[in-house]
C-alpha cells in the first residue's frame, strides 16, 4: 500500500501544494481522492524540500485543505496504447468516453515522449496529394511535415481540414496504412461533432482516434490532450508502420490554457502574458512530426489555429510558424467574396515542397509553375494597390493584364468545390492556362524551353 498524504497545504487555481512528502519524482502522477470517493488526477510540477506542487487535471473545485487523500503513482503520466484505439473516442487525458470499455493496452508510454534524434530522422520527400489546387501546387503537403492552418474565427478551416482528410485517400480501401489522430483542445461541442459527422460520412471513422477536450473542460487536461494524441500517433507510425495524419485544433486554446496555468504558478510572463517557454513548449508538440529511419510510417501534423484578431504577428501564430515547416493562411477578404478555400497565397508557404515536387515526384514543370504563380500573384497585388490610387483605367497594359489574371486566378484556381478533387495534372494544366493570360515576356521564372512547349495565348481564352 503506497503512502497516503492526508490534506493539502494550499490551493491556488489548478495547483495544490503538499508538505512533508518524500521520494517523489519530478513529473510523477498522483491520485487525489476526495471524501465523497471521487478521484482526480494530478502531476508534480515543482518540488522544493519536502514541499510538492501538483497540478490537478480536473480542476480544484471542491477541494479543501482537509478533505483529500493523495497517493503518488511512482511514474510519469503514461497512457495505454493499442492499435484498436483507432475508431475510439477519448477524453483529453486518454480515458475512453465512448462507453465501449477500457483499452486493452499493448504497451504504456510517457505522454511527454522523447526528442527525436536528428540523426535518426529521414528527410521527408513523399508528397501527399490533397486534391486541392492551391495546396498541391503552391504549398504542397509532404508526408512527415507539420503544416499548420492559420485561420480566423468564422473562416472555413474545419471544412478544409475535413476535405484534406477525405481526399488524402484516408477513407480509401487501399489506405490500410492510413489513420487519423484527432485532438480537439478547447473547441466547441459543435466543432467536435462536425468532425465526427464528417469522418462518419466519409467512412473514415473506423480509422480515426479522437481525443476530445471541449471548451468547458478543465484547462490542465487541455495541455495534455495533444501529448496523448501524439503519443498514440508516434506509436502507430514508428512501431506499427502506419501513416498518421494528426489534426490538432485549436492551438490558440492550448496556448491560452498554458498561459493560465503559468500565471497561476506565478511565472514571469514573456510577450502578451504568455510564458517565456511558449516556443519550447509548442516545439515539443510540433517536433513530434516526422519520418524516421528504419520505419516505413510517418507522422504528419496539421495543427489548426485561429489567429486572435486575424493578427499573424500574435505570439501564437508567430512562434508556430517559426517551428513548423510552413503555413497555410486563410484570407478573410477572399473568404467573404465566396472563394473556397480562401487561402492567402502570398502568406502561405510549404518549406518542404522544394524537395518533394518536380521530376520523379509530381511533374517536372511543377517548381517553375508554382514559382511563376507566386511571382505573378505578387505583381497582381502591386497592380491592385496602384489601381486603388490612380484608378484602373490609368494602368499600363501589362498591369491591366495582371489585374485580369489576378481575378481569374482567384475565381478558377483558388476557388474549388468542397467535393472537387483535382489531380495534379489538372491543377498544373489549369495553372498554365492562367499563366497564358500574361505576355510571354512576363514569365521570367521559366526557361525558354518550357515557355515554348506550353505557352499558347489561346489556352487563356476561356477566362476572358
Amino acid at each position, binding site marked *: 500500500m503506497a503512502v497516503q498524504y492526508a490534506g493539502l497545504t494550499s490551493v491556488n487555481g489548478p495547483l495544490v501544494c503538499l508538505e512533508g512528502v518524500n*521520494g*517523489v*519524482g*519530478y*513529473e*510523477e502522477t498522483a491520485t487525489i481522492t476526495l471524501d465523497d470517493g471521487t478521484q482526480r488526477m494530478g502531476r508534480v510540477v*515543482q*518540488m*522544493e*524540500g*519536502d514541499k510538492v506542487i501538483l497540478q490537478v487535471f480536473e480542476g480544484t473545485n471542491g477541494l479543501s485543505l482537509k478533505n483529500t487523500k493523495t497517493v503518488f503513482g511512482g*511514474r510519469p503520466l503514461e497512457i495505454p496504447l493499442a492499435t484498436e484505439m483507432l475508431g475510439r473516442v477519448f477524453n483529453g487525458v486518454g480515458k475512453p468516453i465512448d462507453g465501449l470499455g477500457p483499452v486493452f493496452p499493448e504497451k504504456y508510454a510517457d505522454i511527454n*515522449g*522523447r*526528442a527525436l*534524434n*536528428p*540523426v*535518426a*530522422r529521414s*528527410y521527408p520527400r513523399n508528397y501527399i496529394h490533397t486534391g486541392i489546387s492551391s495546396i498541391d501546387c503552391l504549398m504542397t503537403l509532404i508526408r*512527415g*511535415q507539420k503544416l499548420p492552418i492559420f485561420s480566423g474565427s468564422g473562416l472555413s478551416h474545419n471544412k478544409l481540414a475535413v476535405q484534406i482528410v477525405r481526399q488524402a485517400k484516408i477513407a480509401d480501401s487501399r489506405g490500410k496504412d492510413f489513420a487519423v489522430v484527432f485532438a480537439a483542445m478547447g473547441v466547441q461541442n459543435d466543432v467536435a461533432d462536425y468532425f465526427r459527422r464528417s469522418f462518419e460520412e466519409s467512412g473514415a471513422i473506423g480509422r480515426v482516434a479522437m481525443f476530445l477536450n471541449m471548451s468547458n473542460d478543465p484547462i490542465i487536461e487541455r495541455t495534455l490532450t495533444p501529448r496523448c494524441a501524439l503519443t498514440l500517433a508516434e506509436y502507430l507510425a*514508428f512501431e506499427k508502420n502506419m501513416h498518421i495524419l494528426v489534426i490538432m485544433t485549436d492551438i490558440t486554446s492550448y496556448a491560452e490554457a498554458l498561459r493560465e496555468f503559468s500565471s497561476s504558478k506565478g511565472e*514571469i*510572463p*514573456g510577450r502578451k502574458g504568455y*510564458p*517565456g517557454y511558449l*516556443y*519550447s513548449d509548442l*516545439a*515539443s508538440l*510540433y*517536433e513530434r512530426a*516526422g519520418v524516421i*529511419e528504419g520505419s516505413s510510417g510517418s507522422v504528419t501534423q496539421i495543427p489548426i489555429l485561429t489567429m486572435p484578431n486575424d493578427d499573424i*504577428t500574435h*505570439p501564437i501564430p*508567430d512562434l508556430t510558424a*517559426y517551428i513548423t*515547416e510552413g503555413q497555410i493562411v486563410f484570407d478573410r477578404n477572399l473568404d467573404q467574396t465566396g472563394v473556397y478555400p480562401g487561402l492567402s497565397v*502570398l502568406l502561405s*508557404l510549404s*518549406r*518542404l515542397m*522544394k524537395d518533394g515536387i518536380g521530376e520523379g515526384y509530381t511533374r517536372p514543370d511543377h*517548381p517553375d509553375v508554382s*514559382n511563376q504563380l*507566386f*511571382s505573378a500573384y*505578387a505583381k497582381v497585388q502591386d497592380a491592385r494597390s*496602384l489601381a486603388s*490610387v*490612380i484608378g484602373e483605367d490609368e*494602368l*499600363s497594359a501589362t498591369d491591366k493584364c495582371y489585374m485580369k489574371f489576378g481575378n481569374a486566378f482567384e475565381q478558377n484556381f483558388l476557388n474549388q468545390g468542397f467535393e472537387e478533387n483535382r489531380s495534379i495534372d489538372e491543377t498544373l494544366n489549369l495553372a498554365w492556362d492562367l499563366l497564358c493570360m500574361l505576355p510571354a*515576356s512576363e514569365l*521570367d521564372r521559366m*526557361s525558354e524551353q518550357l515557355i515554348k512547349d506550353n505557352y499558347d495565348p489561346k489556352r487563356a481564352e476561356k477566362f476572358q
Partner: protein
Amino acid sequence: MNTIYAINGPVIKVRDTKDFSMREMVYVGEKKLIGEVIGVNDLFTIIQVYENTDGLKVGESVYTTGSPMCATLGPGIISNIYDGIERPLGDMKSISGAFVSEGSAIPSLNGEKKFDVTVAVKVGDTVTAGQIYAVCPETPLIVHKCMIPPSVKKATVAYAAPNGQYTVNDTVLRLSVEGEDAELPLTLCQKWPIRDPRPAKQRMPVTKPLITGQRIIDTVLPIGKGGTAAIPGGFGTGKTMTQHQLAKWCDADIIVYIGCGERGNEMTQVLEEFGELIDPKSGRPLTDRTVLIANTSNMPVAAREASIYTGITLAEYYRDMGYHIAIMADSTSRWAEALREISGRLEEMPAEEGFPAYLPSRLSEFYERAGYVKTLNDSEGSVTIIGAVSPQGSDFSEPVTQNTKRFVRCFWALDKSLAYARHYPAINWMTSYSEYAEDLESYYSENVSPEYMPLRQEISTLLVEENNLMEIVKLIGADVLPDDQKLIIEIARVIRVGFLQQNAFHKDDTFVPLNKQLLMMKVIIKLYHEAGDAIKKGVLFSDIVKTGIFDKLIKIKYDIPNDKTEMFDDYEKEIDDIIGKLGRI
C-alpha cells in the same frame, strides 16, 4: 554528500553547501545527468541541467567534478554531428535508438579510431603554448594539428612517440614543465572550457572577404573573414536557406553549423545534402569540412544555451591551427529565449520583454569571439560568425535584433515582401548594411579589378534612385516619368531581377565567382550609360525596350555558364550594335 533540494524544470537547487564553484560542471541524480552551476549563494547552489529532469527526485545526489563545462578537442570532430554539449548524436542513436535519452555518458571523440600521426617535435626540444607537436589527416580536406595547450607556457619534450597509428587517447608526448616535478602527458586531444575564448597572439584587421558566391553579399554587402553578420528575418523569409547557401559555398576551410533550437528536419536536410554535395574546389563532399551541432527546439533548453558556446569553441580550436572557419548560428533568437527561460526559472528581474538584463553582454561576448588573428604558433586563422535572428512578429525593434545590431558589422535584413514575391535571397538592399565594404576595397581592387568598387557604388546608387522614383510611381504611375527616369527604373529592374535575385537551385547560378559578378555588373552599367547617352540624343526609351535587350540581360545569369565568361563580349557588342542602330535612325 550534496543532495537535490528543489526541482523546477531544468533548474535544480542544492541547499547549504560550499562545495560548488560558479560554472562548474556537475552530475545530477542517479542517472548522472549533466549540469552546470549557474548560481551560488549562502543558501543555495543553483544548477541548470542539460537533460530532461522528469523522474528526478528530491534527495538524489549531486556530484562535483571540479572543472568547468569543457569541450573535448581533437581529431574526429569534423564530419561529426553533436548535440549542444558535444555528445555525438550518431553514437547516441546506436546506443539508445531513434529517441534521445538521458544520462548517456558518450565520449565526444571516437576512442577506437586510429589516426596516422606524424610527430613534429623530438626529445629535448623546447616547446611553447600553441606550438604544433603532431599532425594527422582528419578528413581528406583537413589536416589536424595537435597544439601544446595554452596553459603550458614553456616546456621541454621528455618523450616523443614515433610516427604511427594512434587513437585520440594514446599518449604521444610527455613534457617536463619548468617548476613541476611530474611530466605532463599529451594525447591527441585536449579539453577547453566552452565559455572562455581561446587565446591568440594578436587580433588582425579584417582585410580579406569571405567569398560566398552570392551576388548580393559579395558585391553589395560583403563580409570579411573574421567578421560578424546577422541575418534577421521573419518566418518564411529564408534565413535558413541563406545560411545553407553560405555553408555550402563560402570559401572558409571549415564550417561549424549550429542548429540552435530549430527544426529537426532541417538538420536532417543538412546532413543528407552536405553528404551528397561535392565541393567544386576540392572535389570532396561538403561533410568533409563541416561540423554540425544540433540542438533542435524540442531538445533540453539548457543544452540549447550551451550549444552556441560549444560551437564557437570548436571553431576557435581549428582557427588556432591556421584555418578559416565560418560559423552559422541558426538561430541566436532561440538561444536568447533559452537564456530567458532559465532566467525566468531563477526568478530574476526581467528587462525588456522578459529577457534578462544581461542579454546584451552575452550577445557581445559571443560575437566578440569572431576575428582574424595571428595564432600562438604564428599562423593566420579566422572565425567568421553569421548569426540568424528570428524577430518576434517580424518586428526588428525587439530586443534580440536591436542588441545584435550593436555588435555585428554586417546586417543582412530579410524582407517579407521580397520573400512573398519569391525574390531570393530576400535581403533588402535598402535596410541592410555592411561596414566591411571599405576595409575590403583594396582586396577587390587588387585581386579582382580596380573597377569593382566603383561599379558596386554605381549599382547601389541606381537602387537608391529607383527607390526614390518608386515613391512617385506609386502615386501617379510610371507612364508620366521622363525617359531618363524610366531608364533608371528599367535598369534597376535588371539589377534586381538579373543580378540581386539568385537561384539556389540552378547549377550555375547557385554559386557565382567574383569575376562573373564583375562582368555582370559591367555589362548592366554599360547598357545604362549607352542607353542614357542615346536618350540624351533623342532616341526614344520605348524603342530601346522593344529590342528586348533588358530582358536579355536579366537572363545572363542563366545563359552564360560560369566558365564561359568570354561570352560577355558578345553581349557588349550587341549593346553597341543596338544602341548604334537606334542612334542612326
